[in-house]
């Protein structure tokens, strides 16, 4: 393999950007490993406890961009207690001590403190991009540090974080010299910011392409911002409420019309439907529309808007659009690739909303559909079979029937056949979430057909251990398996313990696995970390091996048991 000098190989490797490909390249031989590692700039770590910051730094001295994920996915749904872990501080501290010139940090489900945000802002001269998704533990003071100290900041993107808000002053901390902003998203913050400071910031950011405001930014400010930044590509409105006959509204209309580059639109956390007409002129250019935080748009309003969006590729809406509304989507948005339908009333009595009919209409009208998240009241096997036929290109298929064990209402059968059709037809399926009444049969299908499946989420499904075994044996590419409330126990857990080393993680809660089973697994597989998460009442029961384990989370790791586990986590 030494036909080329290292520099040539390095040059070639620069064209290889996907993490998987890079990982493969590094396995070819020692010299490729070495060249790859020195030239690697972007690293993705799907589980922050699988490796240590020191080893990361040692291997990739040229690191510029780091992506870290912390808590297990089900933490999003309150299944993981606070303080479980996922602290980013050790990473930032280690990186700060090293010579790494970090430029980008992307975190998901991690605990971030103000101190480490401040450390981050002061340690890396060229720091450009901070993306926080579903994180917590920081306040607006931390944001102020980032704004004040990162001289070349390009991106500050806050998505769905739990931020303790002390004041809106943070936005005013961007110095006058900061003119490099490309992307600013503070939609998840609830507090007011200095509107004048925001206007000035936007005015001096000629490269600004993405701006997502929070609900406290009123419509007349939006108008001023748009006047300053007609080059925007991605806009998230704040409060979108005004008197349509007013001067401010007229100004907004003209401002929007100048924004010919907007391709992505979101926000509308507060919205007056009568103001939506101002948006219509940019609709024909939109490729992404997110109305999922706009319950104020009901009835036919969303539909009226969508009718103008013929080029839409991604649509996120609330289920109050109804099956009929989805029919309009199907006939309008022929380019649609991704659809997410969220419940507007997750715990309600189940009026309105969407059913299998809407999904069938979509599948018939949008053959390019490859990614679905669909919360609905019911689903039928027939519908799923039709969808599978119409859309064989699904990569992500997440179906959530709000009543979690609901059978097919037409036939009263489980939904095994429907999901079976999906996995059989969609040969490229990588992510699947199941719901409804399901038996072991669906897992048999998944094991047989879902060859590319990487992530599977199951709740209230299956009859016996065989179900889980079908999946573990059949899905060779499985990386993440998360199970809640299923009758899978030790037999399934222990049948093939080596499998878990090929996966990133396994989550099982409210299943039948016992403490003894978990202990056995931990003994056999020292390269796994098997965590038992206790609710406080169960501490007294914890010594009996026959005791069922409420929550188990296991993951492969190269660095042994983590040292930062709280009291209620027991690592076997």
């Amino acid at each position, binding site marked *: 393999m030494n036909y080329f000098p290292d520099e040539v190989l390095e040059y070639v490797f620069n064209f290889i950007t996907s993490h998987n490909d890079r990982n493969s390249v590094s396995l070819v031989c020692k010299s490729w490993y070495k060249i790859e590692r020195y030239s690697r700039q972007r690293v993705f770590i799907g589980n922050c406890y699988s490796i240590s910051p020191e080893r990361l730094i040692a291997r990739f001295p040229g690191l510029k961009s780091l992506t870290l994920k912390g808590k297990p996915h*089900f933490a*999003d*749904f*309150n*299944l993981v207690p606070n303080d479980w872990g996922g602290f980013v501080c050790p990473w930032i501290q280690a990186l700060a001590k090293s010579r790494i010139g970090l430029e980008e940090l992307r975190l998901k489900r991690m605990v971030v403190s103000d101190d480490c945000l401040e450390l981050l802002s002061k340690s890396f001269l060229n720091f450009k991009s901070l993306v926080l998704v*579903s994180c917590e533990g920081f306040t607006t003071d931390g944001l102020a540090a980032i704004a004040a100290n990162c001289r070349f900041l390009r991106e500050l993107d806050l998505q*769905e974080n*739990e931020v303790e808000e002390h004041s809106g002053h943070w936005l005013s901390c961007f110095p006058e010299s900061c003119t490099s902003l490309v992307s600013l998203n503070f939609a*998840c913050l*609830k507090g007011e910011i200095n509107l004048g400071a925001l206007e000035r910031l936007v005015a001096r950011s000629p490269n600004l392409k993405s701006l997502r405001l929070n*609900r406290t930014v009123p419509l007349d400010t939006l108008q001023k911002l748009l006047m300053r930044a007609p080059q925007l590509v991605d806009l998230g409105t704040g409060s979108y409420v005004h008197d349509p006959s007013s001067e401010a509204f007229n100004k907004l209309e003209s401002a929007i019309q100048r924004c010919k580059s907007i391709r992505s639109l979101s926000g509308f*956390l*507060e919205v007056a439907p009568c103001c939506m007409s101002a948006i219509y002129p940019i609709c024909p250019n939109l490729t992404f529309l997110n109305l*999922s*935080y*706009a*319950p*104020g748009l009901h009835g036919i309003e969303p539909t009226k808007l969508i009718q103008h969006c013929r080029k839409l590729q991604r649509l996120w809406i609330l289920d109050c659009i109804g099956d009929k509304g989805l029919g309009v989507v199907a006939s309008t948005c022929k380019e649609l690739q991704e659809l997410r339908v*969220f*419940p*507007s*009333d*997750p*715990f*309600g*009595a189940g009026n309105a909303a969407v059913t299998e009919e809407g999904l069938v209409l979509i599948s018939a009208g949008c053959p390019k559909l490859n990614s679905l998240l669909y*919360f609905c009241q019911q689903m039928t096997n027939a519908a799923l079979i039709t969808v599978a036929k119409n859309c064989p290109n699904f990569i992500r298929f997440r179906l*959530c029937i*709000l*009543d*979690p*064990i*609901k*059978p097919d209402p037409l036939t*009263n059968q*489980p939904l095994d056949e429907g999901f079976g059709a999906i996995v059989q037809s969609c040969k490229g399926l990588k992510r699947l979430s199941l719901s409804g*009444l399901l*038996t072991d049969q669906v897992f048999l299908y998944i094991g047989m057909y879902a060859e590319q499946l990487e992530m599977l*989420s199951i*709740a*209230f499904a299956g*009859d*016996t*251990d*065989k179900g889980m075994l079908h999946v573990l044996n059949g899905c060779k590419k499985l990386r993440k398996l998360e199970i*809640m*409330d299923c*009758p899978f*126990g*030790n*037999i399934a857990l222990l049948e093939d313990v080596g499998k878990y080393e090929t996966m990133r993680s396994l989550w099982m*809660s*409210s*299943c*039948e696995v016992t403490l003894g089973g978990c202990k056995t697994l931990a003994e056999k597989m020292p390269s796994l970390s098997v965590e038992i998460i206790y609710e406080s*009442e169960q501490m007294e029961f914890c010594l009996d091996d*026959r*005791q*069922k384990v*409420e929550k188990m989370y296991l993951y492969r790791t190269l660095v042994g048991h983590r040292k930062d586990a709280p009291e209620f986590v027991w690592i076997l």
Partner: protein
Amino acid sequence: MSPPLLDVEEEGGQSNVTLLASSGSMDSVCQNSAELKERNYMGLSDCSSVDSSVVSAASEESKASLNLKATELRLGLPGSQSPERNPELCLLSSAQLDEKPLFPLHPSSDGHCSITQKTIVSGNKRGFSDAMDGFSEGKFLPNSKVDVMLSPRPSSNLGLTSGSVLENLGAQPTKAKEIANQKVVQDRLHAANETRPNPNASANNNSGAPATKAQVVGWPPIRSFRKNSLATTSKNTDEVDGKTGPGALFVKVSMNGAPYLRKVDLKNYSKYQELSSALEKMFSCFTIGQYGSHGTLGRELLSESKLKDLLHGSEYVLTYEDKDGDWMLVGDVPWEMFIDTCKRLRIMKSSDAIGLAPRAMEKCRNRN
């Protein structure tokens, strides 16, 4: 021909009856048990009416079911064996346990069934009801009453074998499974119907209003950020009067001398004590005065208006403005009535609140 599954929306599960091939007495047991089942998932307050009906039904049923238990196969709740297994469970739960007939078993299979029954019963599937119970214990029911249905673990270690046992049963394993599944579905749906999730977290139901509305933690799988955001948004749009958004009932809370208003969602609480603690945390310097114990009010009113807070001489009291625009003391009326009529809350000094009590009493009397 598998028996028709009941219409999943129907509460009461009358078609329990159709799944049992045996006797008429079995049918009646089932009907009773179906009703029983309904009640069991209600908030188990100190409403003795509920208790007594369950008790009587239980005793009646246990007589009838002595022989029938042996033929019953249950994919049941955790802890749902015979009472002697879990002596600490109260009668309520044991009554509930007995009434889950699942398999229409031929008499010849009785032998099988009695052996298998226990293993199955220990919870092959952790059904929706289990999940809700299990979760509600830890999370939504600080009130210990519903704990009786839970004790999630001691019994369930047999759950492992139950699956295979099911397969060994009878000559038609697939059909049996189908039936079992349907029955489990039915059970779970009963649980689901009866415990249809409340818009808001707390699951207690002092006044015996229909269905303990517990939420299963982790279901539906929506990020809490999104859930909270929807609640906030609807609150803002439905504005001042505390009009109900999707299941929320926000009212403004003001306090003399406090620099800001707060809003609370009354649906998050099921009794005055919870509201009191929440407001206490928010404003941290007041307590609800003890105005609860009016002897003339009915029994259930008394129990609801008993506030934990015993500081009679507290400096502040909690008052509310009702639909008529009158300011009343919080704690005088049943909780349900209170959240119906409360438009706004105000924390005022006790000295300012003099004279409110008599009006409140009068209004109560008029209402009753």
